[in-house]
Every structure is written in C-alpha cells, then in structure tokens.
C-alpha cells in the first residue's frame, strides 16, 4: 500500500478521536461483538457497513452510550467514557426512523438540546434558524413532525442533532426508510453537511452503494467482527475475503489454484495476474468484477463459453455466460446475443486473488488491520 492511495490520507494528517478497545457485547448469551478494536479520526466520514445482525448498530450504540459493553473501553478524545451517561457525551445521534418528539413542533424539537443546556433564547432562535437553513427547511418552525414527509423529518432529526455542536455525529441507518430517489438526494445532502460542519460522521448502513458514495473510510463488519476496513476504492477493488467481495458489489467468486506467483489456474485455464506470495499450487479464491470480464471471439479468449441469458439494464447489458462449468456474470455495454459462443478474457490487474478459508467458520474470523 502506498501513501498516495486516498484511504491513507487521514492516517497521517488527522488526530485520533475515538478508540474502541477490545469491546465485547452479548445479548441473551448470543455474542454480538467479540473483541472489537476500532480507531476513528477527526473530521472523517466513517461508515460501518454490514448485513443486519453484524454488530454495526450495537457498535454505534456503544459509542452513543445507549449500550454498555460487557468488556473493553471507549476512549473519546483521550478520555475513557465507557461509563459516561449518554447525556454527558459530546456526540449526538440521528436515529433510525427519526425519533422526533411528536408532542413538540419543529422549533421545539430543534431547541430541545439547547434548552437543556439553558442557552439564552436569542441564541436558541438563531440556532434554530441556522439549522433549518442548513437542512433547507426554512419556515418550518411551527409545523408538527407528523405533518412532514419522511425526508423532511430526517432533515429535522439531523438539524436537532447538530445544533448542539457535537464533535461527532452518529447516524444509524438514517436513510433506510426513504425511497430510492430521496435517498440519493439525501446522500449528497449529507456529504455537503459534513463538509460545511467539519465534524466526524459515523454512519451505519447495510447499503454498500450508500457506503461507497459517501464515506472516506469504510468498516465492513460481519458476525461481530471487522472483516476489512479502508477507503471505498480499496474495499471495492481489493476485497480481502469472499465475504467482502460478495457483499460489496456483484462479483464472480471462483475457486482457483495459484500455480505460482503471477499465474493462477481458473476453471482449468491459466490466467496471468499481479498477485504474489501465495506459494505454488495453492487453492485460492479469485474475485473478478462483472465489468472486468471481457467477452471476445471464442478463439481469442482464455476460456470459451456460451451466452445463456441477456438482460438490458439501461446503461449496460447483464449477461450470463456458461464457461468452464461456472456461470459468469458479465456487465458490458456491448451486446452478445443469447446463444452466441464467446471467449472470456480478464486483464491481470483485474484478478483479485484471496486466501481460501479452510472452513466456514474461518470466514468469520476477524481480520485486524
């Protein structure tokens, strides 16, 4: 890894803000988090990404103070806050399904935290106006939460959280309840907000696209372990195991054999690659993204097969190709009709070689970075 890579940037320039040390948590005897270690830096957009039940929300709630870890420590700005009540932590949360106070109007909702701090009225009013402007909802002061659309409520929830000027904003799947178009709009909105406020965002989602779009840093979690962390580009292009590869984007994950450095045998055909250090004649898994599979004439390909299905997806065609006894997923702007014989070619740097786990369980073992 080289320092020029975008994911590296933060590590050098930014100060450490939150550190989770050996956090474990179980509910009813079921392990949710197992010895989790994580460092979050200042002014970073960090996303905890994973399927439901992976422990991402629990991690967020432990940072927010709504859950107490069974063991381990939470360090915030150099201070141990593991036992600090949520109201004493310098961070605010945007909850799933907004959690607005339905008995208060918008202004009262936003002012809630400030009134608790006994701020002067003028200050509060200024803050309300500022926050509403920030989330593009000026003039909504005296509406009731139930009369607002989902997207608007979400903005209010954000406004309510940021007027307290937290150092960190925790967002728990904040866009989960919105429809697709609104979700995309809000994604840009959140990036803009983060840049304007200049604070740390910790964002929880199960939507890999959302994570890739917004984050500076992604933490992929599964079954209570961190599977991989890094910049979006790194996570996408260099998944470290089959779980990450499968979870982030569509991919062809194929069992293969590493013949030697820079040469891998996939489905009986030998492909050139760029990976080294896996040994010789070792079983491995390879990941090939569908858009990286090139369809050529049968005689020109490393492997030959037949197109079995074609679906038009607007920007590209999605094709299934039967080759070497494996059904390949292929994305291409060039159409190959169903039934055509084709050859498959992959550029060496598009083949990502991974260690194959010995057993099912090993897949879940933490990969500390």
């Amino acid at each position, binding site marked *: 890894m080289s320092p020029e890579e975008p994911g590296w940037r933060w590590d050098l320039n930014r100060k450490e803000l939150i550190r989770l040390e050996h956090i474990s948590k179980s509910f009813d005897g079921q392990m949710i988090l197992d010895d989790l270690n994580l460092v979050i830096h200042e002014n970073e957009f960090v996303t905890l990404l994973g399927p439901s039940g992976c422990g991402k929300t629990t991690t967020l709630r432990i940072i927010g*103070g*709504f859950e107490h870890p069974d063991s381990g420590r939470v360090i915030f700005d150099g201070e141990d806050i593991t036992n600090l009540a949520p*109201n*004493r932590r310098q961070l605010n949360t945007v909850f799933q399904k907004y959690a607005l106070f*339905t*008995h208060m109007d918008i202004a009262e909702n936003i002012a809630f935290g400030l009134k608790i701090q006994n701020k002067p009225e003028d200050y509060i009013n200024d803050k309300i106006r500022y926050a509403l402007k920030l989330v593009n909802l000026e003039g909504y002061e005296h509406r009731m939460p139930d009369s607002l659309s989902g997207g608007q409520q979400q903005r209010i929830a954000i406004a*309510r*959280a940021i007027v307290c000027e937290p150092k960190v904003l925790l967002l728990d799947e904040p866009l989960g309840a919105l429809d697709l178009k609104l979700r995309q709009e809000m994604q840009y909105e959140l990036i803009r907000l983060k840049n304007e406020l200049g604070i740390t965002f910790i964002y929880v989602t199960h939507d890999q696209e959302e994570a890739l779009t917004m984050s500076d840093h992604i933490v992929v979690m599964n079954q209570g372990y961190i599977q991989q962390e890094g910049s979006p580009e790194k996570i996408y292009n260099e998944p470290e195991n089959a779980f990450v590869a499968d979870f982030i984007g569509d991919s062809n994950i194929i069992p293969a054999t590493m013949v030697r450095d820079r040469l891998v045998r996939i489905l009986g055909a030998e492909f050139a690659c760029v990976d080294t250090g896996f040994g010789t004649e070792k079983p491995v898994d390879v990941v090939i993204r569908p858009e990286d599979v090139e369809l050529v004439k049968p005689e020109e390909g490393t492997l030959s097969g037949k197109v079995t299905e074609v679906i038009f997806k607007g920007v590209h065609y999605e094709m299934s190709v039967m080759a070497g006894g494996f059904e390949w997923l292929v994305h291409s702007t060039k159409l190959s009709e169903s039934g055509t014989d084709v050859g498959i070619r992959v550029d060496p740097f598009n083949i990502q070689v991974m260690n194959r786990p010995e057993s099912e369980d090993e897949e879940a073992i933490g990969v500390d970075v």
Partner: protein
Amino acid sequence: MFSDRKTSRVMASPYAAWALIFILVPLGMIFYYGLTDETGRFTLANIAAISQPEHLKALGLALLLSVISTAVCFFLAYPVAMILAKNRVSSQGLITTLFILPMWMNFLLRTLAWMTLLENKGVINTALSLLHLPELNIINTPAAIVIGMVYNFLPFMILPLYNSLSRIDENVINAARDLGANEVQTFFRVILPLSVPGIVSGITMVFIPALTTFAISTMLGGSKILLIGNVIEQEFTLSYNWNLGAGLSIVLMIFIIVNMVISAITERREEED
C-alpha cells in the same frame, strides 16, 4: 365497500333500530323524567334538587373520593406501567397478564375481599393485634371506600398507561438522553407528555366508575356514607321517585360529558399531531 349502498342500508338497519330503541330512547327517557314532575309537567326542580345540602354533600363527597382514588391509582400505576414498558414485557406475557388478572375477577368479590380484610375483627386487625400493634378502624369510613375504589380500578389505570408508554419508540427516549437531558428531564419533557393519551384514558376509566359507584360505598362504607350513586340508586329502588332520580342522573351526566369533551380534545390533538 363490500356491498352497494342499498344493501348496506338494509344490513345496517337492524342495529340502527336497536341503537334507537335501546340507547337513544332510554337516554331520552332520563331527560323526560328528569325534566318533568309526577304529573308530567315541565320542571327544573329535579335538577335544581342537586343544590339541596344532602345531595350536594353526596356529590361533593363522591367527587372528592373519586378524585383522590384517581390520583392514587395514577401514582401507583405509572411506575408499574413504566417498569413493564421499559423492560419490554410483552403485552400478552405472564407478568402483564398477572397485573390484569384481578380485573377479570368479579367486581363484587374484589370488594368483598376488602370487607373481609378491613373489618374491625377482620384479617388485618387480627394480624395487627397478634403483632401487638394498634388496630385500624378503617371499615365504614371514606378511607375504606377509597381503598375499594383504588383496588377495583387500578388495572384500568395500568393498562392504558402501559399501552401508551410501550408505544413510545425507545429511540425517542435515547434521543432525549443523547441531546443532553438527564433522566429526570427526559421523564418530564418527553416520556410524560408522550403518555398523555394513556393518562387521559386511564383517568376516564377510573374517574367515571368511581364517581358513579354505589356498590363500593354500600359495601365498604356500611351504608353510612352516601355518594351521589347511592342517592340515585335509592331514588329508584327505595324512595321510588323516578323524576328526582332521573334529574340527579342528568347532573351526573354533565360530569361525564365534561370528561368526554376533555378526552375528545386530547384525542383530536393526538390525531392532528
């Protein structure tokens, strides 16, 4: 929806007739009797009779005891409902069922139980004297009536409070903590206001039956303490003065209507929110 308007009308007509005969007409009769004298002439005397000292006192005492009972029920029930809701006890679960179970037991048997307990030589006093403690003389006093009311109507307070508290999204409470409110502030600024619908319906469900009861006061008050319910009951079963009884019932209904309006307003506000 499932039938055209004509069929619907035919189908709805039996109940419409039923409601007319058994709900509206009887209610009208209370007003008829309440507003006429024995000869059928219009009079307001039966309603004005509430200002007679003995009626006024019965009404005042009924109001006082029912307000006290409602307040006691509220303060006893709120923590119970909070604890049940907080621990996310299922509404069909064992613990909730146990708290509602006495409600299913016959109302008079529940009251009878307290007669047995509170009697001068009853269970409580026997226990107290065994412990060489001074005996209590509660039976046949307003205190006994309040105990009876609280005991009988407590589940009616717990249930709606529990329902409205368990409906509060846990994250709303977390949000308040997150925004800097401590537990006390969270309770008064968020939890309490959000449980207002439950409070209102709980109060209605306790206050109305407590205000209008006559069985509890007869059984635990030793017929010594007349509440407005007893006065009305006696006008019908003892004094045989339907007009006066109906007139006093109208007065009683005024309180019910006031209560109804208050709960309707809260409900509407809920809907608007």
